[in-house]
């Protein structure tokens, strides 16, 4: 189906089902219950799940397939955001042209950066991309203020006059898709549960599915095989008469365009952008997402971005009182002791948990959470099946 083999098609179907039903799946706890804070089914967070999923999928096409570790990928996200923002300010509040411009602008930027950076590999490539990203950040922050709004960033203001749309007097402009407001939500009450279906989320989710489908096609194409050849042995590739540069450059530009798409979508959802989106910690975050989920796997990056965004928004909200509530069933002394132990890892300290999980993944599971899942699945399937799958997995490890 759709040019995919049955296994990949099944994966695509699963991802499609998960994203479409996300408002239900992410809201498993009834409103007002003690566990309600673990609900992630609100529009803002769901949008972030899929948008950063796109970002990580794109990063994975570069890092997962070719092994080039870019430490400046957030620059493309930022440039795409600025491009989309200006399109909305000047042309139309419709999101489609804005996103398209975001993709094009960051694609061109990625072409320029990639052309220069890909002359080196390994650590030098990482430093070069980092240097470019930091330069973009510094410029957006200072000199390019007329273009980027400097520290305050850009918003759609009532003084803006887009060519094709009008902003009502005294209101801020809202992004829309042919009149469908991105913030429009339909709320459904089912017993104690409250489910929110947000227009912006579904548009972002559909685009994410498309991006995911494209990445499967890239992974399975002869082009994807070439990229994997770059990773495993570039020298041998040269000796067979193939030049690796055009392939890696194409991968770099594609992954830059994915980042631009994510940036454009971010602007479409919250109609604002600031230079901090390009700071190198943002680049580090997408690296974390991809590695955590599993670099070189199809589903890994989406998984990783989901885990990190969930932790960032949910784990960080847990404070001491909530912990005391949870462990209230324990005797007092023990309760205080457990709370004292757990507290540094949640709330403001969620980065600590993230860092520890990340280190554990790099040390023990170089294939990320996906590899962990496979290992567990193998345990359950028993020994005979594991031997079979071992053989299979050695043949297709990088893409699995």
């Amino acid at each position, binding site marked *: 189906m759709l040019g995919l083999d049955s296994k990949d098609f099944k994966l695509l179907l699963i991802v499609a089902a998960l994203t479409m039903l996300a408002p239900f799946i992410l809201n498993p706890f009834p409103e007002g219950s003690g566990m309600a804070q673990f609900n992630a089914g609100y529009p803002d967070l769901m949008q972030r799940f899929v948008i950063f999923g796109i970002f990580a999928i794109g990063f994975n096409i570069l890092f997962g397939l070719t092994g080039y570790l870019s430490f400046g990928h957030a620059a493309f996200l930022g440039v795409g955001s600025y491009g989309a923002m200006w399109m909305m300010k000047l042309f139309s509040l419709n999101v489609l042209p804005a996103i398209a411009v975001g993709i094009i602008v960051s694609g061109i930027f990625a072409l320029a950066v990639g052309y220069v950076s890909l002359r080196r590999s*390994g*650590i*030098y490539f990482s*430093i070069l991309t*980092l240097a470019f990203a930091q*330069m973009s950040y*510094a410029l957006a922050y200072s*000199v390019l203020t007329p273009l980027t709004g400097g520290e305050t960033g850009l918003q759609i203001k009532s003084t803006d006059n887009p060519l094709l749309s009008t902003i009502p007097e005294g209101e801020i402009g809202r992004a829309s898709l042919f009149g469908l407001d991105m913030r429009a939500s339909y709320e459904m009450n089912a017993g104690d549960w409250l489910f929110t279906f947000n227009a912006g989320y579904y548009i972002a989710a559909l685009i994410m599915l498309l991006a995911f489908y494209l990445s499967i096609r890239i992974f399975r194409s002869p082009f994807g095989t070439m990229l994997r050849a770059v990773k495993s042995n570039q020298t041998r590739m040269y000796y067979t008469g193939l030049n690796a540069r055009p392939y890696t450059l194409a991968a770099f530009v594609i992954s830059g365009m994915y980042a631009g798409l994510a940036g454009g979508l971010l602007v479409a959802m919250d109609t604002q952008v600031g230079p901090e989106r390009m700071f190198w910690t943002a680049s580090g975050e997408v690296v974390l997402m991809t590695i955590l989920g599993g670099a070189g796997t199809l589903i890994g990056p989406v998984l990783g971005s989901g885990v990190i965004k969930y932790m960032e928004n949910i784990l960080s909200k847990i404070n001491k009182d909530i912990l005391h509530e949870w462990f209230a069933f324990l005797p007092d002394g023990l309760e205080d002791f457990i709370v004292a132990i757990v507290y540094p890892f949640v709330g403001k300290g969620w980065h600590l948990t993230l*860092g520890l999980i990340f*280190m554990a993944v790099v040390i023990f599971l170089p294939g990320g959470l996906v590899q962990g899942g496979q290992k567990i699945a193998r345990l359950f399937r028993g020994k005979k099946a594991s031997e079979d799958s071992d053989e299979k997995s050695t043949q297709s490890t990088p893409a699995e």
Partner: protein
Amino acid sequence: MEAIILQILNGLDKGSAYALIALGLTLIFGTLGVVNFAHGALFMIGAFCAVTLSRILTLSHTVIDESKTDFLGNPLKVDVPYVYDFFGQATGDAIIDWAVPLSILFAIPVMMLIGVVMERGLIKHFYKRPHADQILVTFGLAIVLQEVIKYFYGANPIPTPAPEAFTGSFDFGAMLGFDPNMIIYPYWRIIYFIFAAIIIGGVFAFLQFTTFGMVVRAGMADRETVKLLGINIDRRFTLMFGLAAAVAGLAGVMYTPINSPNYHMGMDFLVLSFVVVVVGGMGSLPGAVLAGFLLGTLESFASMGAVLEVLPGINQIVIYLVAIIILLTRPRGLMGRKGVMED
């Protein structure tokens, strides 16, 4: 003219910090071949050694001073640091005042220990893995270390002043025959520069003139052969990792009066230090030091008003720009050896 001298001076202290961190990074890379993204965190931990020591020194207990009363007529409670009890008030005050320089003595063993534990506990397992994995695991370690520090010390910068004697500024211009107050330079920055020079000189002397250093240099050139000669090179390299950590830590200790330490200062320095190492040449110790001072000075020149008028914003990007040019035209860096990490 005076503006130029001022910028050179300004560049020196920043350049000293770059040079010290880059020196440590290069020591680790040259000996163990590991790209250490956690090095900035070591710099930060060094700075927090100074914070810790000054907190330990000001630990106090409350005594009731019968001779003074508050406005209600009750005896006043006074916090008395323990050092007063041990050394008397005058000496105690002096010790607290000199907390930052004293932290050097405190930081050296602590940082050596952290370095050795880090190498034995974590980095050792990553020699055989690709550079990307080393970058990633040390990046994760850096996050963990800075979060631990944030947990214990909070997210705000902690002012840690230099000793009273060094708080003033030195009128450099008057000495050279300019008008007074044209070129003034804080004493502590001079101290920082001298300190950095001593440390750098010390490391080079250690590598150049001791038997231990000779073996390490031999190991850097050809690890296998040194091993075949029956020398336990791994243990020496572990110690070098500790030394590199100590250098980064000392750079951090002495930097605290210039910039109040906060938990993410290491990361801010790390990105620039990597650029410095690459410009100087991966694995070249003199290159790292030279590039550190060069780029520090360049950065301060770029932030001169006259330069900014011609090229606005150049001060923000000049280091990266230089790095890009160097990497593209001379990938082994200013003083890198031919063939080392040159691809």
